[in-house]
C-alpha cells in the first residue's frame, strides 16, 4: 500500500522515478534520452521570452528545438508544475514571490550554480546586487533564479483627464471618490486586483486580514466593480484610455501603459501613489520576474545556457522590448545594455520616474488569505453584473 495518497502530481513523479530506474538498467536508453534533451528546451513564461526575436538566435546557435508557452498570470503557471508538468518544462518565468515562497519550498524548481550566475547580478542595477533576496531561497543559501524584467504596477491615468500630480497625491482614493463612477476601468488581472482593492480599502494586502478588514474589502469590491465602466485586457484598457471611454484604470503601470506610450500616446502614464497603506506608508507595488530551472528529472542542459544567453546586453534589450509590452530590465545597470535603449524607448518605459516610483513601492508578495479575498472579489464582480 502506498504511504502517501496517489495524486496526479506524485503519480507523475513516481512514473518518472520508475522510468528513471528502468532507464538505469539500460545504458543505451539513458544515453538516447539525454541526447534527445540536449537539443530541446521548453520554457513556461510571461510573454516576451516566447517571442521569435528572443528565441530564434538561440535556436540557430544551438540547433535546438525551443518551445515557449506564455501565460498571463503566475498562479496558472505554478499550477501547471503542481499538476505534474515538471517533466515537460525546463525553465519557468514568474513574479518574485512564487519562486522563493512557493515553488522552491514545494520542490518545483532547482537551484542554480551561484559561482556561475552571481557575477551577473553585479552588473545589474544597484538594487539587484548579489545575493539578491528574490533570487535566493528563503534561507538565503541557494540561488533559485535570475532576475530580469521588473516594474511598478498600480494604476494608469490619461494625464489629459487626471493630472499626474493629482493621481499621485490622491493615490488609491481615486476609487473612493463617487464622482469617478463609470470613469474608470479594471484590468482583468484578478490577483493584482485583490492587492489594489485592499489598498483602496485602506490596508496592507500582504498580511492576514482581520474580520473588519475583510468586511471593508467586501464593501470596496462591490463598489469598485459596480462603478467600473469596463473590465478588460491591456489592449482594451489602452484603447479605452486613448479614445476617452475611461479616464484611468487599475491594475496597471509601466508594463500595461508602455505599448500605448510607445505608440505616441505620452498622455497615458503609469502612476505610483506618493503614499499608501503598505509598510513604511508606501502606496505602490513593484514586480520582479525570476526565471528558474524547473525540477525536471531530465532537465535540458540548454536551460542554464538560455539563462546565460538572456544576460547578454543585446538580448536583455530585446527581452525588454519583446512581444508588445515594454519593461525595464535589471541589466540596464550595465552601461553596454543601457546604451542600446533609444530616447523613445526610455520614454515608453517611464525611465524618467522609474527610480522614484520603485522607491515608493513595496515588492510584490503573496497575500496570505488570497483565496478568501479572491472569492469575495469574484462574487462582487458577479453581483455588479446583475445590476
Amino acid at each position, binding site marked *: 500500500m502506498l504511504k502517501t*495518497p*496517489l*495524486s*496526479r*502530481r*506524485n503519480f507523475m513523479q513516481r512514473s518518472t522515478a520508475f522510468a528513471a530506474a528502468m532507464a538505469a538498467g539500460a545504458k543505451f536508453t539513458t544515453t538516447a534520452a539525454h541526447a534527445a534533451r540536449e537539443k530541446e528546451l521548453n520554457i513556461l513564461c510571461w510573454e516576451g521570452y516566447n517571442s521569435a526575436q528572443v528565441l530564434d538566435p538561440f535556436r540557430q546557435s544551438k540547433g535546438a528545438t525551443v518551445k515557449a508557452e506564455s501565460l498571463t*498570470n503566475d*498562479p*496558472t503557471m505554478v*499550477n501547471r508544475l*503542481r*499538476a505534474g508538468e515538471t517533466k515537460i518544462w525546463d525553465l519557468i518565468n514568474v513574479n518574485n514571490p512564487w519562486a522563493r515562497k512557493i515553488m522552491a519550498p514545494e520542490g518545483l524548481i532547482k537551484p542554480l550554480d551561484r559561482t556561475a550566475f552571481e557575477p551577473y547580478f553585479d552588473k545589474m542595477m544597484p538594487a539587484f546586487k548579489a545575493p539578491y533576496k528574490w533570487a535566493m531561497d528563503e534561507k538565503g543559501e541557494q540561488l533559485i533564479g535570475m532576475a530580469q524584467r521588473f516594474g511598478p504596477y498600480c494604476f494608469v491615468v490619461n494625464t489629459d483627464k487626471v493630472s499626474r500630480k493629482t493621481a499621485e497625491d490622491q493615490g488609491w482614493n481615486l476609487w473612493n471618490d463617487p464622482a469617478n463612477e463609470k470613469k474608470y*476601468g479594471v484590468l*482583468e488581472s*484578478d*490577483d493584482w486586483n485583490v492587492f489594489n482593492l485592499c489598498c483602496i480599502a485602506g490596508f496592507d494586502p500582504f498580511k492576514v486580514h482581520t474580520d473588519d478588514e475583510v468586511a471593508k474589502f467586501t464593501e470596496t469590491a462591490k463598489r469598485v466593480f459596480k462603478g*467600473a*465602466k*469596463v*473590465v*478588460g*485586457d491591456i*489592449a*482594451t484598457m489602452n*484603447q*479605452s484610455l486613448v*479614445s*476617452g*471611454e475611461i479616464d484611468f484604470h487599475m491594475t496597471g503601470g509601466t508594463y500595461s501603459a508602455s505599448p500605448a506610450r510607445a505608440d505616441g500616446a505620452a498622455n497615458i502614464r503609469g502612476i505610483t501613489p506618493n503614499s499608501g497603506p503598505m509598510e513604511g506608508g508606501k502606496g505602490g507595488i513593484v514586480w520582479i520576474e525570476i526565471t528558474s530551472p524547473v525540477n525536471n528529472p531530465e532537465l535540458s542542459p540548454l536551460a542554464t545556457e538560455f539563462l546565460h544567453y538572456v544576460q547578454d546586453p543585446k538580448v536583455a534589450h530585446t527581452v525588454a522590448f519583446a512581444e508588445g509590452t515594454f519593461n525595464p530590465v535589471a541589466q540596464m545597470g550595465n552601461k553596454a545594455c543601457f546604451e542600446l535603449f533609444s530616447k523613445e524607448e526610455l520614454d515608453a518605459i517611464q525611465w524618467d520616474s522609474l527610480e522614484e516610483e520603485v522607491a515608493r513601492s513595496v515588492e510584490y508578495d503573496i497575500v496570505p488569505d488570497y*483565496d478568501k479575498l*479572491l*472569492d469575495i472579489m*469574484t*462574487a462582487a*464582480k*458577479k*453581483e455588479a*453584473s*446583475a445590476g
Partner: protein
Amino acid sequence: MAALHENGKILSQGACNALPVMIFMALGFAAPLLAVIAYSFMPPRSFGLTHTPTLANYADIFTSNSYISFGWSMLFAALTVCILAVICYPIAYGLACLFGRWSPILTLLFTIPLFVSENVRLYGWILFFIKNGVLLGTLKSWFGIEPESILFTPGVVLLGMVYVYLPFMLFPMTLGVSMVPNETREAARDLGASRFQVFREVDLPLSMPGIMIGLLLTFVLAVGAIAEAKVLGGQTIIPITHDIEIAFTYAQNWPLGAALAVLLMLVVGTLVMLVLKRFDLDAILGRR
C-alpha cells in the same frame, strides 16, 4: 460477465471492427469528461484525484451567487437563438428558393468571416463602437453630435453573439428550407392556401429538421460563449464560462471549476434531451 455472441465469440465481427474507434472515443472523449466529473467531487483547491470525494464544490455553487452567471449564460443564449431564428429564416428561404445563381456567392460571404479569428472580429467591433471610433467619430465629425457610447453594455454583447453565431443558425436552416419540395408549396397554393398558411403548414413543418439543428447548435455554442462578454461587454455581464475560467486560473480551484463545468453540461444536456425527446431527430432527418 460478457455475453457470448451466437458464433461463440465474446464480441461480434462488427463490434471487433469497431473496437479501435470505441477505444479511441473512450480515451479521447469519455476519459476527459470522466476526469472533469471526478475532479468535481474532490475537496476545494486540491489537485489530486485520490482524496475522499465530497459534495463541497456543489454546495459552494448552490450557496454562492453562481446563479447570476448561469442566468446570464442561459438568457443570452436564449435571446441569441430567438433573434437568429427570426433573422436567419428569411435569409435561408432566400438562399434556398429565391436568390438563384447569387446564392453561392451570398453563402460564401456569410462563410468568409469564419476564416477570421473570433477575437479579431470582436476587436473590429470595438473599433466600430468605441468613443471617437468609426461610428461615433463619424457622427461627431459629420453631424457634430456626440451620443453616449454603447460599448461595454449588455446590448453590445448580444449583438456580438448574434453576429458570431449567425452562420451556425443560417446553414442548417438553409439546408432545412431546401429540403421542402417546391411542388408541395405549389400544391398548397393551388388548393387555396394563403402565403401565411403555406409558411405555417408547409414550409415550417417540413423545414423543421434544419431549424431544430440550427437552434440546438446555436444554443449549445452560445451558452458556452465567453469572448463576447469579455471583449465587447467589458465584463458588464459575467457568463458561467468566465466563472469556470477564473476557478481554473486565478483561484487555483480546479474542483470548483470542474463542478461548474459539470453543472453546465447537465443543464445544457437536459435542455437538449428535452428538445430531442419532443422532436424525433431520426424521423426529421429522414432516416426512418
